[in-house]
């Protein structure tokens, strides 16, 4: 499964990196967050458990709040806002 990134509406984006292992999910997330404007939201979809901790810590250290997170089966879905 290839990485998929798209804009769903102005200021809202979806990044799907299911199937990817470390370090790809965290690297793709970082690259996308760098592109977004303050207040934009990213819905991040991934299924590599190890990336969950790293992405949470990365968002905290870069001041990008995670507005919500949930699991659907083995898939993680994070809603991240650009700080």
């Amino acid at each position, binding site marked *: 499964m290839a990485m998929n990134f798209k804009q769903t509406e102005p200021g809202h984006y979806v990044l799907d990196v299911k199937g990817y292992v470390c370090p790809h999910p965290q690297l793709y997330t970082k690259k996308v967050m760098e592109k977004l404007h303050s207040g934009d939201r990213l819905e991040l979809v991934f299924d590599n458990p190890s990336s969950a*901790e*790293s992405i949470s810590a990365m968002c905290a250290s870069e001041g990008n709040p995670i507005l919500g997170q949930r699991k659907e089966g*083995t898939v993680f879905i994070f809603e991240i806002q650009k700080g």
Partner: protein
Amino acid sequence: MDAIVSGTLTEPKAADCCSDSKSLAETVSRKNRMWIFGIVAFFTLISVGTYAMHEYYIYLSAYLWFGFIYGMCLQYGRFCFASAFRDLFAVGVPRMVVGIMIATVLFSFTSSFVASTGWSTFHAAPWSIHAVIAGIIFGVGMVFAGGCASGSLYKAGEGNGVSLLVILSISVTQSTFVDLGGWFNKLVPQSWAESALTKSLPSSINVSDGWVDQYLAGYVWDQPVITFARLLGLKDETLIGSFFGNTFIGVVLPALALLVVVYFIWSRKRYVLDLKSREGRSAGIADHLRGFWTMITASKRTAIAGLFLGIACGLQMFVIEGLRMKFGVKNAGTILQRIGFDYGISAKGTVFDPGYWYVTTQEAQWVGWLAQKLGWNNMDNIYFGWVNGIPSPAINPADWMSVALIGGAAVMALLNNEFKWKKPTKELAIWALIGGALMGIGSRLALGCNVGAFFVRTANGDVSGWSFGLGMIGGAYIGVKFFNWYTERKMAKEMANINFDL
């Protein structure tokens, strides 16, 4: 993709993703509970059944259950050595560096206790620049592969197909690399070839044929073996030598210094910014101490895993040495021969039996065993023929440890509903094979991987452990630089049609 995004998002709880307070019976599905029961029952049956055949099998079961504990700890804490410096350089996340340092310090304390009782199974390795070079190759490989040698084992327990490919690549590369001769002999410096011939190895080893043989006997074995205790003129097996020399000077101080550097470069800025926005003041020394502690405790899962790993690693040395004393043996080769297995025993009667947590050699052995069964004579090299042997994986103690590590990780993944078979994509399969091959070469040059050459050696005050670690950090930096370029290139294509100002 859009269909997935439904339902209500939950508030995040710090870094503990998606955790909740429900009981296991409520959160673990019946299917997962059945699998957990099956895995634990399988390993229990092996232990009990083989013990019923002969008490010597308890030696192998000791390896098995420590492997199981390691697997549970690694999966629980997402404890991957590869991510330590990779995530630090790539995304500025220090959690794994912290976890590894906690585990190393605790392992060092338990190791020093064991060493001071005279029951340590640890032997320091020769030290020279080769450890740094090997670390660089290994470090690049672990970033490319998406996990180190031990990380790939636990991720295989999560059902990750990429990790299985990494393990396969490490195994095949090592097994092939240690037996490279012929044209590769031309790459051996004359001084190594001459020195190797003076080591009085048996004719069955044929030391003048094989690059790795001559690297080992002609170069590595000539290097000094140094521990921090010995540098201070102390003995490793004394209380002061082990606790002060190897643990305090060799581990606690360097680990503390490393964490302080990590805090000031990667964590301080965010902590100071948060403090200023919260309380409207600048940070003082007391604030920095609190900030440092916040960094240490930021990921409780990783810290807890590090704590248990550190204690278990020391305990394993104690238990294995105790069993050796009980059975009056110095190596599992003797045990295997006593219970009737003599296939694949080395020329000096030994098999690989580290007495502590180790990952890569048993991976080389199962491929070596298979290759020999297919007609490849690989018992004429030092690695297999003189030191480690190639016993059947079914009775190889270190293989029992690795298989159980995968099982322990699977149990923990099933408990957390994180087990899922994931078929590797072509892109990730290529990275897995390249990264695994680099790790295989790096680990043979260093005589170990991130566990055997870094974690275990560093914790036991072996100077070569930090040397390998230094190389591994450099390799991780190079690997991250490459992946940054690779990711940006791929993202540029994906983002080409997106206007971010809309």
